[in-house]
């Protein structure tokens, strides 16, 4: 499936899911006082959030936009 065929709404849902998951991991890492908590935050939480942000930014570029003739 081409990226342009995916609607912006689907992009936003995927992006927000990834960000929420990443933020939940960040909360766990902050409440867990252990050297592995940093690994959990940096390699899991921050990666999920980073991916979510990239999906959001991709939605601005690749998501379906209205046809040119319908624009004012």
């Amino acid at each position: 499936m081409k990226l342009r065929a995916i609607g912006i709404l689907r992009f936003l849902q995927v992006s927000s899911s990834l960000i929420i998951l990443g933020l939940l991991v960040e909360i766990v890492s902050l409440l867990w006082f252990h050297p592995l908590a940093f690994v959990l935050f940096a390699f899991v939480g921050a990666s999920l959030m980073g991916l979510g942000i990239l999906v959001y930014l991709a939605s601005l570029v690749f998501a379906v936009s209205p046809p040119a003739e319908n624009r004012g």
Partner: protein
Amino acid sequence: MAPTGILVALIVLTIALAAVFLMRPTITVGTTGKILAFAALCALPVLCIVTGMSAHMQRSEQTKFCISCHSMENYGKSLYVDNPNYIPAQHFQNHRVPPDMACYACHTDYTIYGPLKDKLKGITRIYLQYVSTPPNPIHISGGYSNLQCLHCHAGARSFEENPIHVAIMDSLKTNQMSCISSGCHDTVHNASEVDHLKMWRPAQ
């Protein structure tokens, strides 16, 4: 509210806003929705990553964080040895370093990217602890630099006016002669011996 509390509040706010776009993404049709989407799905998550990283970096400066690894337990105990010849114990017990940041004060790299380098080294040690096997005894790669001692002691009257220090000052400042392994201040952690030594018990 503690900094971690503020950060958790920020995270909860971001989760709440992101949840709105998970359940009702159609609100991005309007201009306000688009601005809110930018805040919830880009600006606030970036802020959460940066502040989270900062919170983790600050936490890893704490003594209790360093000694939470099993292989560091004896190094933590060595701070309580009741013998003034033990350099780390003497510094810790007399508050010559902040007791809650004792490991960091003497082992960090006091350069602009020092904390970042320390964190990368720390990740290597986590790998050794949980995946590979930690070396026994633990050695600092490249040896202990005098610059870490001189960060505090350079310029101090008792250090600068000591006749032995004066005679070898250039060698100390250029790290040619080590403070801790040249026969002067050579009783350091001795982690393998701490279980047989008398310990100082601070008054509660």
